[in-house]
């Protein structure tokens, strides 16, 4: 085998077909799958959403240093019969441009049991807000998204920070401390 430097000209994927925008989405877990993964022994997840007042939201911000996006926190009590196994909290944080759906599982004592990413979306450019463009891949299962030359699946390159998830954990732990404990 030998090697040498060679030059290619490549038309980047998504430029020609999608116009001036591109995006990528992955669904890792449906809600029920995530719940089961976090609490394998649970036989019921009891919806227990809490809507915070502005005052309460400010309290969370003060305690965690992180501002909440929305006043309503989606949460479930994981149960096995009468036994309380812990809290399953579904949340969203801003990724690079779009919201990432993720879940935090807390034990009955409030200790972090598990963090799972449910949905990850990434889009670029103002045009991507258009419903028509979104329609081309939302709702599709992975493997069917963005059929161009090939699927855009395994993306290398610039590292994306997960700092917003870390902030989200802080915020939800304050939420637990103030309203669930």
């Amino acid at each position, binding site marked *: 085998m*030998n*090697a040498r430097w060679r030059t290619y000209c490549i038309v980047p*994927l998504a430029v020609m077909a999608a116009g001036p925008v591109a995006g990528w989405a992955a669904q890792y*877990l449906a809600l029920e799958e995530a719940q089961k993964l976090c609490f394998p022994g649970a036989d019921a997840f009891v919806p227990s959403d809490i809507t915070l007042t502005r005052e309460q939201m400010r309290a969370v911000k003060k305690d965690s240093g992180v501002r909440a996006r929305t006043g309503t926190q989606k949460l479930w009590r994981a149960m096995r019969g009468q036994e309380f196994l812990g809290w399953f909290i579904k949340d969203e944080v801003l990724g690079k441009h779009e919201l990432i759906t993720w879940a935090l599982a807390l034990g009955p004592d409030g200790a972090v049991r598990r963090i799972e990413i449910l949905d990850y979306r990434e889009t670029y450019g103002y045009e991507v807000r258009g419903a028509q463009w979104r329609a081309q891949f939302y709702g599709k299962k992975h493997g069917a998204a963005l059929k161009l030359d090939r699927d855009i699946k*395994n993306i*290398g390159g*610039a590292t994306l920070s997960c700092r917003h998830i870390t902030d989200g954990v802080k915020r939800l732990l304050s939420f637990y401390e103030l309203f669930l404990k």
Partner: protein
Amino acid sequence: MNCSLSKLRRCHPLLGTFVEITAAGDTAAAVQAAIDEAFAAIGRVQALMSFHDPASELSRVNRAAASGKTVRVSPQIYHVLAFAKALHAGTQGIFDIAAARTQDQGAGTADIELLPDHAVRCLRPLTIDLGGVAKGFAVDCAIEVLRGADMDSALVNAGGDMRCFGRPQPVCIRHPGMPGRFVPLPDLNDAALATSANSYTACAHFHGRTRGPVRRPFSVSVRATTCMMADALTKVVLACGQRSAPLLSEFDADAFMVYPDGRVICWEKEEA
């Protein structure tokens, strides 16, 4: 190929980024268990090698290095330091894991002394930053776990640095300078791919020998047998460009330099 394989894809926030693991195996339960173990292995590397966590083993090593004390370390950190020292020597100092501010004082990877029984001593005060290799090492550890769990195939992608086995994987990399555009690369087959670029951020990489910042208009992707090797070599190619060819040959690696205008200059082995 067995058609009844279960394939799962999971994502956890680790190493400061999003780590995605895809694996296929006999049953969904076995695949999920293997993926959980692989994430745990990455978590252990993070706990050992985080630069910013004062409780990490690396921080303990750095505290000892400041005073020239000898310190016992885990086999993992020892292994990574040995790799870094070898690459530092092999690149005549271009690859350096000493933090830029300690490089300014003349200290470098060569001042790290590896002693028997996993003991480490620094001959000059220096701060070690494993940012250029730890992520690749973590990916390698996860792959080892997945192989050990008899997965049919798997891919671990830690925020853009990845490694796979079992079946060829289509890969593309982010276009330097054009967010949202993806440049396809040849399929990855039982190999690792890492990418470095500084076109999106103001932060620059540092040249270990000239001590100067390295700014390049192109991104560099290196394909190698391990992700730690690929991760580390991207920094060398970013610093040396086409002059890195002998090194790439020596380490059996391929490189792809992607320019903003769509040109890809690649060093790739050809089948004879």
